């Protein structure tokens, strides 16, 4: 089962912190995080990789503008 976190529009360090919380709680499996800034893509990916998760990023354009869908797997 995958967990999702919507961190769009949040200031530092909330996207990283919420990602970290979700990854630690999940332990393994798949976690999907939505962010809207390239800086948060870097931050969340770094956080996940430090915890041993693999990251992939997909950029989407929705009605509310650009969104990055980060998928972390472990």
């Amino acid at each position, binding site marked *: 089962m995958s*967990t*999702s*976190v*919507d961190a*769009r*529009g*949040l*200031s*530092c*360090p*909330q996207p*990283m*912190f*919420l990602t*970290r*919380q979700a990854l630690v709680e999940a332990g393994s499996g798949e976690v*999907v995080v*939505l962010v*809207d*800034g*390239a*800086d948060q893509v*870097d*931050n969340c990916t*770094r*956080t996940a990789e*430090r915890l041993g998760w693999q990251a992939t990023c997909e950029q*989407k354009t*929705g009605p*509310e*503008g*650009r*969104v990055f*869908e980060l998928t972390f797997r472990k």
Partner: protein
Amino acid sequence: MTKVSSFFARRSGIIVAGLVIGGLAATLQNADLFSGRSNPPNMGVCVACFTRDIAGSLGLHRASAVQYLRPEIPAFCLGAFIAALAFGEFRPRTGSSPIVRFILGMFAMIGALIFLGCPWRAMLRLAGGDWNAILGLVGLVAGIGLGVLLLRGGFSLGRAYPARAVAGLAMPVLMGVLLLLAIFYPVFGEAGQAALFRSAKGPGAMAAPIVVSILVGLVVGFLAQRTRFCTVGAFRDLLLMRDFHLFSGIVAFLVAAFALNLVYGQFKPGFTLGLDSDGKPIQQFAAHSTHWLNFAGMLLAGLSFTLAGGCPGRQVFLSGEGDGDAAVFVLGMLTGAAVSHNFNLVGASKFAPYVVVIGLVVVGAIGLAGREVFARKEAKVCQPV
């Protein structure tokens, strides 16, 4: 572009940015390089002091020693704006409690001006041997620590939302106008009676050549936007998540500034610089040795910056990439500078202790009230789009 982009995101990128920014800051202080013209000692770059000088040049306060339209701040914003445009990261957005950010900006500035410097200058002062900076940095870390406790408790100022282009362009355009004013420096009336004001003596009269200041500002803005360089984030991420990424950037900043200060002969260690002919201690430049106020001022600033999501430099850079909320924080800092000088709250003023207490109460209340908005159990969990 992707390779360049990923270099900046790596540890090596933030370290290079820290070395360059710290080195440039120390260099701006070296009068020998620029025919006697330089930024003030241990103040090569100070977002708080320079914003305060800009407030003075515009006539928002009348402290005659600190009035100069410093070109570095608008150049920071425009450097970040250029970087954001070049890498497709310009993103107009707003709506995350702008008025609260304005108040945080005001109190962050009031606290920083009690210490007499922003976190960048705290490190430059340390790199120049001003040991009063140690008290300021301890206060800063304590303030960030309080902010981290609130963040752990679920503090948030809420979400920002995509906005019209004009909301993101407002600050870069405003900064562009300030940069033009800095270059041409018109006076709208009798000199000394109307803006733009310009100090004849004091820190406001000390400035590197404007071309150098603008170029350095653009380079710093560009690098900091790409690497997300942030002095408050450095300590925050370390305390919150044991993440050393941003911290390695400020260590590099400190090392570069210290090394160049030694090379330039700008390292003058001590809480004070000996005694004058009357036997009174000579203060370090733009500094005081009221230790508890150095601590308390930066405690207030550190907490305010942490709740707003980044150091004053970072707020300027974010405003350049379209963040309308960071822009409001910067305007709050400009207002806070005017309040500090108009109400005589600067340095070890007799009114400083009162405003520190008021500030901690107000910012502490914002921190406690903000927790419920984003308590962990309410964290919005949604399906991917």
